[in-house]
């Protein structure tokens, strides 16, 4: 009898717990992990206020585990190699997105692009570079960025200098700056980060080789040994040797030190991506912002353009979670009001048009000037190819990793170009060169 009573009590207890279990299931929280390249308080504010918050309002049962990450691609690859990795990841660019997709780590985003109509909003050139010839979308383009020239307006006005529009003008200006006693016309700090050499190489592919020659190279119609291409490297070395960029000491200066020297008036110019407009505002710099000069006759001043980041989705995500991630990303492309507000809050421009009717007048003048400048270059077709978007991964890594050795004379130009050509030929043969615009 006692056993029967005990059994009955246990059954009743379990039965009473059943509704609680159902309730728990109803309230089950889905967590989306997002490894993001935006960091710091500003990064969090831009992400949360204009993207995560509106998404969570629609999906109260979802949590976003936002993981700000420096050196994002490297960290993502390590996490994926370890068999984990985030559900959503911001990665550096299309060549990384292609590599992750080919390794089976990320999903094809073409169905999401079609379903949500992102292809109608995202610039064609940007979506093209993350789409394989087979139509697979390896990453959804995030922001775009390109290379620009900056000049300290106060100093330049004081000396009556103007921003150079040709290489000859740059050489003349550099000589005058040196005569005036400045440390150098400009400094590119590559100490510990050889990757910074890519900034100059991308600029020169646009303004020395030119858009068509670079395209020909990446499509296999030209080689690194063609003069339009090899000139990119010899011109860089010439600028380094003659002290237009630093005092043959770029390896001894960090990027931050180089910037600090520009801010403090030790140097007069700077060459960086358009992200530097915001750095200038933060440091109260009064500066000229122009396209880099033309380095070869017949090649216009060109805005070397890149997809500055992509969103990719982990292949191990459940279809349900993938759908939630797509809905999150859709806010980026379907809410022009939030997009404009995020730009006014200091976020970088996405690969979509900015609808000015949503701007409230908070945007700083240098940002507006930069937008006008880059949009004009895009309209006129004066856009080039940043190496980190359009070149195969190993070619670009070799290019910047060996730049020091080439500049110091430890690596012969023929060997340098030859190795890059060998790598490029493999990609051309395998069809793994990222699509060229």
């Amino acid at each position, binding site marked *: 009898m006692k056993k029967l009573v005990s059994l009955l009590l246990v059954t009743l207890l379990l039965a009473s717990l059943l509704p609680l279990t159902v309730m728990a299931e109803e309230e089950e929280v889905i967590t989306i992990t997002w490894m993001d390249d935006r960091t710091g308080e500003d990064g969090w504010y831009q992400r949360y206020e204009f993207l995560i918050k509106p998404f969570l309002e629609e999906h109260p049962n979802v949590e976003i585990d936002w993981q700000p990450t420096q050196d994002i691609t*490297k960290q993502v*690859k*390590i996490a*994926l*190699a370890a068999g984990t990795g985030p559900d959503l990841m911001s990665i550096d660019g299309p060549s990384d997105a292609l*590599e*992750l997709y*080919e*390794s*089976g*780590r990320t999903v094809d985003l073409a169905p999401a692009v079609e379903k949500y109509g992102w292809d109608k909003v995202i610039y064609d050139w940007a979506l093209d570079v993350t789409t394989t010839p087979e139509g697979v979308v390896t990453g959804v383009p995030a922001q775009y960025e390109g290379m620009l020239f900056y000049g300290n307006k106060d100093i330049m006005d004081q000396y009556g200098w103007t921003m150079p529009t040709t290489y000859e003008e740059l050489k003349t200006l550099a000589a005058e700056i040196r005569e005036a006693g400045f*440390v150098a016309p400009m400094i590119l700090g590559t*100490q*510990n*980060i*050889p990757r910074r050499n890519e900034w100059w190489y991308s600029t020169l592919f646009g303004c020395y080789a030119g858009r068509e020659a670079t395209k020909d190279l990446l499509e296999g119609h030209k080689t690194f040994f063609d003069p339009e291409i090899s000139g990119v490297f010899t011109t860089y070395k010439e600028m380094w040797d003659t002290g237009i960029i630093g*005092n043959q*000491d*770029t*390896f*001894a*200066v*960090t990027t931050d*030190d180089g910037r600090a*020297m520009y801010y403090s008036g*030790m140097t007069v110019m700077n060459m960086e991506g358009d992200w530097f407009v915001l750095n200038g505002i933060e440091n109260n710099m009064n500066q000229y912002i122009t396209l880099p000069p033309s380095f070869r006759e017949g090649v216009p001043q060109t805005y070397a353009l890149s997809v500055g980041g992509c969103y990719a989705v982990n292949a191990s995500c459940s279809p349900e979670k993938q759908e939630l991630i797509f809905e999150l990303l859709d806010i980026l492309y379907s809410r022009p009001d939030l997009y404009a507000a995020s730009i006014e809050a200091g976020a970088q421009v996405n690969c979509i048009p900015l609808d000015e009717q949503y701007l409230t007048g908070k945007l700083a003048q240098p940002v507006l000037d930069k937008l006008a400048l880059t949009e004009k270059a895009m309209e006129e077709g004066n856009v080039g190819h940043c190496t980190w978007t359009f070149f195969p*991964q*190993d070619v670009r*890594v*070799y290019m910047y*990793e060996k730049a*020091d*050795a080439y500049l*110091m004379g*430890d*690596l012969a130009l023929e060997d340098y170009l030859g190795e890059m050509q060998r790598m490029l030929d493999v990609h051309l043969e395998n069809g793994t060169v990222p699509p060229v615009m």
Partner: protein
Amino acid sequence: MQATTVPRPAKKHRKWLVYFFVLPAFLLHFIFIALPSLATVFYSFFDWNGIGQATFIGLQNYREMFQDADFYVALQNNLKWIAIFITVPVALGLLMALWVSRLQKTQMFFRTIYFLPYIIAAAMAGRIWCSYLNPYFGINSVLKSIGLTELGKTLWLGDKEIALYSVAFVDLWHFWGFVMVMFLGALQQVEPTLYESAKVEGATKLQEFTNITIPSIMPTLTFIVITIIMWSFLTFDYVWVMTGGGPGNASELISTLVYRNAYSFYRTGYASTICVVQTLLSVLAYAILQVVKKRGWDV
């Protein structure tokens, strides 16, 4: 009162008990050390980018490594590094330990001061030293201000002839205090009566040092030398933080070459190959020192 005796477990039982206690540590070691090490050896025979499909290529990575000029530069730099680190910090550490050991009230103060750099994170110290060695607002500006204009033009981290030594200097600044503390501990174990006897016999300070001090601290000295050689093969932090192996590959060490191949070029298979050879070099250095010890170098 009669004492009660606890029956001792059988010898065979005790043996199994020992294994039982060793097992958790062994399992942890096997999972976190042995398995990854074996995986490294395994992947050294593959062409693998770290995330995709690995392709078996036999000994091709090894063949490539032995023809890779960068590997030989890194190896050469590692040997220079070892030569610096088995001489300078050992000599400096020993000398300072001898002086500090004679201090009474202030010994702890000096021990702490000299040991302090050792507990500063390499990433932080490396960045701070990068600022000091900056050609425009580091020590160069001080050198120029005191009239040493030519010396003030030195590119401490940007000149391929001296970048390795500049980083080694910073690592020495960080490391020598540790060696000093080790020697200080050894010196305190030396029997004072030996020195008293030597004094009675009329021995000079140099004779005391060579005939009493050195033989007495020889086990510590040997341990330090072996450890330095093995650590030198694995050195990574200061070089990576301060120069990234550059300029060019002027300060490249085997560890930075491994990292560069694994995480810049994404050639994890090839990086694994270099890792295997790096480990073998460390083991070889250790084995040579053991042979030397057995032949009478040790006391």
